[in-house]
């Protein structure tokens, strides 16, 4: 349904999106996950034909975003990040405008508007000015305009940002519901969101895809450094901390009274080694366990790895210049 191959976007010297490759099948809900300024919005703007890619190719619903921009835009519903709406229109007027502007045939318009109002639960505010309704309702109006022409592809940029927990749950429900009919890309930097709504996650940092997999696989894939917690008694914490640092494979030790948080190279071999070393010292081993790895840990790890390789400075980013 959506493909990107070697997709790049350059703003002056800055490479905002660097060689993205991905394919999204019909009916998938895919989450773009990444820190701010990772290139999520830029990618979405290319897919929605706001601006063309600097290099590479992308297709949406079988149409090229550059050469067949109009057809792409007919097949995409887009919700930009800050939900820009005409505040001096009522909700119904606005949806009427969106339907007409998106080319919904005159005879179908009434039905399309009624469907959008119903699916986004806008009945109670349909005759109010958009400027006077709450953030949560605005978000739903934004979703309403995106789905009004029943496009096969929906692109939602941070659909839950700025909402309260109850509203976030409602929007997530709605997105899952819409996902039964449409292919959806949503961007977010909130992790529970992707594990709850998305069937696949694409992690983007510094304009590059760092990982793409299902949320479950990502959580279980492990980290480059494993967090292990050890409880030791029988010696001064400072002494224990110094000792733990000397054990082979331990990268980092933080102490919190008798509890020590370690970051180690791996998990299977490290736990027995740590236990043996502490017992041999004659200290008391109170606890020893590897922390459950969450999607958040994986995400932060991937982003940190990406920043490290970006910031190393030894091999500067090869910018294809001279064009």
């Amino acid at each position, binding site marked *: 349904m959506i493909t990107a191959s070697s997709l790049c976007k*350059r*703003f*002056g010297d800055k490479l905002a999106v660097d060689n993205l490759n991905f394919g999204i099948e019909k009916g998938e809900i895919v989450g773009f996950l990444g820190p701010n300024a990772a290139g999520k919005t830029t990618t979405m*703007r290319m897919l*929605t*034909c*706001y*601006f*063309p890619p*600097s290099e590479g190719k992308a297709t949406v619903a079988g149409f090229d975003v550059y050469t067949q921009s*109009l*057809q792409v*835009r*007919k097949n*995409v519903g*887009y919700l*930009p990040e*800050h939900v*820009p*709406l*005409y*505040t*001096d*229109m009522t909700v119904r*007027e606005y949806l009427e*405008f*969106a339907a*007409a*502007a*998106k*080319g919904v045939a005159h005879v179908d318009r009434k039905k399309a508007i009624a469907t959008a109002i119903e699916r986004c639960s806008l009945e109670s505010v349909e005759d109010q000015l958009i400027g006077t309704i709450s953030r949560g309702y605005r978000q739903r109006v934004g979703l309403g*305009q995106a789905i009004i022409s029943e496009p096969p592809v929906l692109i939602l940029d941070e659909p839950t940002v700025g909402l309260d927990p109850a509203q976030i749950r409602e929007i997530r429900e709605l997105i899952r519901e819409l996902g039964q009919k449409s292919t959806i890309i949503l961007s977010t930097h909130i992790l529970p969101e992707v594990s709850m709504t998305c069937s696949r996650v694409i992690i983007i940092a510094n304009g590059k895809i760092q990982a793409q997999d299902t949320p479950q696989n990502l959580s279980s894939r492990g980290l480059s450094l494993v967090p292990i917690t050890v409880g030791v008694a029988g010696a001064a914490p400072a002494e224990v901390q110094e000792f733990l640092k000397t054990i082979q494979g331990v990268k980092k030790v933080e102490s919190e009274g008798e509890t020590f948080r370690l970051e180690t190279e791996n998990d299977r071999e490290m736990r027995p080694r740590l236990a043996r070393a502490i017992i041999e010292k004659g200290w008391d081993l109170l606890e020893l366990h590897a922390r459950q790895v969450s999607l958040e840990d994986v995400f932060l790890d991937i982003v940190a790895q990406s920043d490290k390789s970006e910031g190393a400075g030894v091999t500067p980013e090869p910018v294809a210049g001279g*064009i």
Partner: protein
Amino acid sequence: MLAILTKEIRAYYNSSMAWVLAACYLFVIGLMYVISISEFAPASARAAANPMGAGEVRVMEQLIYPVVWWMAFLLILMVPLLTMRLFAEEKRSGTLELLFTYPLTEFQIVMAKFLAALSVVVLMLFFAGFTTIMFTWRLVGVEWPTIGTICLGLLLVGSSFVSYGLWASSLSGNQLVAAVVTFGGLFATWLMGFMRDFVNQAKELIGDPSNLAHFDNMARGQLNSHDVIYYVGWTVLFLFLTMHMLASRKWST
């Protein structure tokens, strides 16, 4: 395209700005009419007293022309305030981004906004002109062909000003900047008519540069192709520049 046109017209209809401007415009034009009548009345009375001097009463020139000139001149003040929001407001609020992802071309967006603003200007001109002309017609009679060239002239002046204002509005997200650029540009272009040397040189190259000089002929009942071309060219040029201004988001290498 019709969707945006309707939306823009509705936005004008719902905003106090258009109404206040129209009221001001009608009031000032009304005043100008009263003033020109008060100057015209003694002249016509003198002419009536002297049967030999009857040829001196020129209704179109003495009564209609001053009012019509002011109708065109006041557009220099009014149009900036009408056109400033067209793109600047949508740029600031971000709605333009969404509009660009709808299946609409830049041409459709620009034309819809242009026609919406022009329709408001035409409506203002119509109400101001209608009362003036109907009054004069009932009082002393008018020359209808001249009225025709005046209407065409006002329409051309209006559309050239609106297209320039539309372009100015697409420059930034700030409505005030748009209004100032529009007013400054229109006023300066009018003032150029007073720079005699420059005008004489420019006339050989591109014709009279002043934006109201070309209207002058039409207000007096002469229809010249170069006057029409001046306004049509101005309109097309700035509509074209506006389209490219909107497309410039795509240009970053």
